């Protein structure tokens, strides 16, 4: 065996455990779900399952609940993605600018992300509680009006977004901080020597260098936003009036409460299609701009 062949074999051996688990727990289920999306399969009557072609997809597109869930998902994404980009970037810059205590603050910002979504959700359910919650309690103390955070359609989705931001913003800010730390000092020094102002340096040098990282955050946050599930499930249960019931929750409830696995699988593929379309559009727009 040549040296190159040996290296190839070693590489494959290292990859093998992951490849096996990927094949078993990702590839195979994805294939099964694709097949299921063309089948009418009710778990309570699995023996009567049959191939129905695109029926599940066309049923979904005619289903009012599907569009309600799509609306809720888009609503969440529209609020969440810009908020993550803005606040994450601001925090990243803030951390970058800190000369002392940066590690401690970075750790504290990242800490909520270590929590399980259920724990974070239950915690915020109490924070948002109308009568006894920390937020309304504080608002009352300082003379601000109390708000029905989770029980009013106008506030429910923003509440879910606030909780999600608290839960996930640490990771984003650290990614941006790391990217900032990677910027070669010579660029900044050269700009300073050329007499560039702070604003010019930030917008003409730092942001262009950060663009691939911001693009990465943009794409991953958008994908994550489309997959929103646990936060709303725990905070609001999808209410009020299904205004926070996203596509993943709709899919889950259809498949696991309604036992319509075929229909549930079709919804998941429609969601995949939406994510793919958005990702491609984002990719084209960002590349064209750059």
């Amino acid at each position: 065996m040549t040296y190159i062949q040996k290296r190839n074999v070693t590489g494959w051996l290292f990859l093998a455990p992951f490849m096996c688990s990927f094949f078993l727990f990702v590839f195979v289920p994805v294939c099964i779900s694709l097949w299921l999306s063309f089948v009418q399969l009710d778990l309570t009557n699995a023996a009567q399952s049959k191939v129905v072609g695109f029926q599940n997809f066309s049923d979904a597109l005619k289903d009012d609940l599907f569009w309600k869930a799509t609306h809720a998902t888009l609503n969440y994404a529209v609020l969440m993605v810009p908020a993550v980009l803005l606040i994450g970037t601001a925090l990243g810059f803030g951390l970058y600018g800190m000369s002392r205590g940066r590690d401690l603050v970075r750790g504290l910002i990242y800490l909520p992300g270590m929590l399980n979504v259920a724990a974070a959700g239950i915690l915020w359910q109490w924070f948002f509680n109308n009568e006894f919650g920390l937020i309304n309690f504080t608002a009352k103390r300082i003379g601000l009006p109390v708000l029905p955070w989770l029980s009013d359609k106008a506030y429910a989705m923003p509440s879910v977004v606030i909780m999600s931001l608290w839960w996930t913003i640490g990771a984003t800010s650290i990614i941006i901080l790391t990217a900032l730390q990677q910027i070669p000092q010579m660029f900044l020094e050269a700009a300073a020597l050329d007499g560039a102002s702070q604003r010019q340096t930030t917008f003409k040098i730092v942001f262009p260098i950060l663009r691939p990282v911001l693009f990465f955050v943009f794409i991953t946050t958008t994908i994550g936003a489309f997959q929103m599930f646990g936060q709303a499930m725990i905070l609001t249960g999808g209410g009020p009036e299904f205004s926070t019931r996203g596509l993943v929750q709709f899919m889950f409830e259809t498949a696991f409460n309604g036992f319509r696995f075929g229909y549930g699988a079709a919804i998941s593929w429609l969601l995949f299609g939406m994510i793919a379309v958005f990702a491609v559009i984002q990719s084209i727009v960002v590349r064209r701009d750059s």
Partner: protein
Amino acid sequence: MQKSGNFNIRGLLGGLAVIVIITGLLRTFLTGGFSASNKVSITFWNGFTGPDGIVMLDIIKEFNKENPDIDVGMQRIPWATYYNKLTVAGSEGRGPALFISHADAIPRLRRAGFVDYADDVFTGDGAINPKDFDRYVLDRVKFNGRFGGVPLDVHPQGLYCDADMLKKAGIIGPSGEAKVPETKEEFLRAMDAATIERTDKQWGYALTVWGANMRAVMAQFDGKFLDEKGNSVLNCPENVKALEFVAGLTKKGKVPPPSNGLGWFGFRQGKVAMVWEGVYMVGDLTRVNSFHYLGGPIPVIGNHMGTIGNSHVMCIRKNLSPKEHDAVIRFVRYLSTHSLDWAQAGQIPARVSLRSSERFKGMQVQSAFAKQIPYVLFPPKTPVIFEFMLQMDLACEYAVRGQKTAQKALDDAQKETQAIIERDRREHPEDYKS
């Protein structure tokens, strides 16, 4: 030193092995393990994860003690995921020998094909007399003229009152104690009297689960979910009247606004004088110290007494061995006979004879709620129960929040639920042949 260390480890391991062997032998001798082949083990699944589960566990321990040839093992799973797990396990032939199902979930489980008939409970030595059940309750578990399970309890919604708050508001009977409102007029008067609007801190009444509250009134107006042919009639005039009443309370500002969130929690905190909730919530109140509460039937808002309710039904899995089957039958009969113990967990026994006992009459809330049993409306008997109730609850939410009129909300829900039923008929024609 090394040798000594090795010796100690060996000695420790050897000692442990001896202890394990001796413990095993002792257990075998003390529990009659050599005759273990005669002991039948049966698994019993349910969703009693609260204090009710502890009551059930005590009943099972007693049964196991009294029946040394049977060993019942209970598995408690939260209701939120219970039916998923039960259906998957049952469909794969790995389901429990005995399990609890709500009456309205049985049609779905029967469709999955693993629920056996429970006729043997009602025949042979030690049989339970079916006449000891309310006919209407027993009808809920009948399929093709046979018993699809045995009702353990009935759990209707009823009226909970904070006795101190009502008394303070002047809602008192001849004895000078708080009086539970019985009619619409009394209820509305009590609601107004106990509401302190000036401070906005105390309410006479609050809605809890809007859909369930509406269904309680729906029963009083003789409302229906389905007609004789199984078609949705959610927008029938009786249902509209019920929803108009419930939504009207919000519209008129008689109850906390929908965004307020006060309900059962507010009642427990002494901010709400009256709520409608299920009898099973009584267990929650017993944990609150110095809280004087009273239970009563839902006040008559419609034509007569009535409420919404459901039953925990004992269902038997198909394909049990004769030994397992006999053991399950004995255990089901035991549970049914001892359902007065179960009533302590906040339930009403399905057995009529037990409800007439002095012991049951001593359970104030349970016995007061039990007066409604002849008028209890059960959720519809349909395999699409999940989707059906989802649409109905959404309609109630729209009406209570003032997004739609009661008529419009129920018209829309009727269309949606009818579409669901028609889809199910198309997909499962064999279930609708009869």
